[in-house]
């Protein structure tokens, strides 16, 4: 199934919880923020969201800036 993550298409074998997707991609869940289908998902909701076909994720972190 296809999902869009940070503007890029990703293909997954099956639906899985958002938290498992982060582990799959080796993303440390500290200090990141996630929008799922354009709504911010609080940290404690990451295990409850099951990714579905055509879902849109934005996974953001802080970088240097002025």
């Amino acid at each position: 199934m296809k999902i869009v993550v940070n503007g890029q298409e990703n293909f997954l074998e099956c639906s899985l919880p958002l938290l498992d997707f982060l582990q799959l991609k080796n993303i440390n869940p500290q200090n990141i923020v996630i929008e799922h289908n354009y709504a911010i998902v609080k940290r404690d909701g990451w295990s409850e969201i099951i990714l579905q076909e055509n879902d849109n994720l934005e996974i953001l972190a802080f970088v240097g800036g002025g």
Partner: protein
Amino acid sequence: MDKLTIGNVQLESRLFVGTGKYGDDALIPKIIEKSGSQAITVALRRINFSNPNDNVLNHIPQGVQLLPNTSGARNAEEAVRIARLARAAGCGNWIKIEVISDNKYLLPDNFETIKATEILSEEGFVVLPYISPDLMVAKKLVEVGAAAVMPLGAPIGSNRGLKTKELIRILIEEIPLPVIVDAGIGKPSDACEAMEMGAAACLLNTAIATAGNPILMAEAFGQAVAAGRKAYLAGLGVSKIEAQASSPLTGFLYGEKE
């Protein structure tokens, strides 16, 4: 002790430092230490999947006030979205509003900035808007709940100094909020000049990050900001066109015979 209060936070240092443009983010802790800065700006970006755990927060010591910016926003709506994300990331409720759609000079869109400030202030953010120095815009920002105003001295990253000095002076005189000079400061003497004039603080990034020795420059800026603040508090002497002797003119030479 002379402290700067923004929101309910008191800062001893009046230097805000940005974290962009460092070739190596590992320099950042030393920059923060040497500058003495207690308020640090960061930006929010999509994670890079080739290096997913790269996060500037790994280099920022605990206890400093984070000031995420909304860079990348081209209108109020985008700025509000970024601000909400930054807060959800768990880094507090301060936000630097930066709304820019001019790619040549990176000048802020004051009107969209006012809109974003109003929305975010109502949502409980401590809003520090980056603006082109304009008195009417600054007054409007006071009305809609800004915690400070941050006029530019010159375009971002230009290192050109206080090109807007007179307009900033008017804001300092007329606006009952901290006026933080943000952008354009190129030299410690620029920062010192802004502080002597009564600016509440200075925010800079490029002048330190692109210096030959950024750590030494961070220290120089810390000292310049502190010196300028002390000079402002001390009250500058009056400037005059003609000389006024500093040494007593005892006059005994004039009384002698030729």
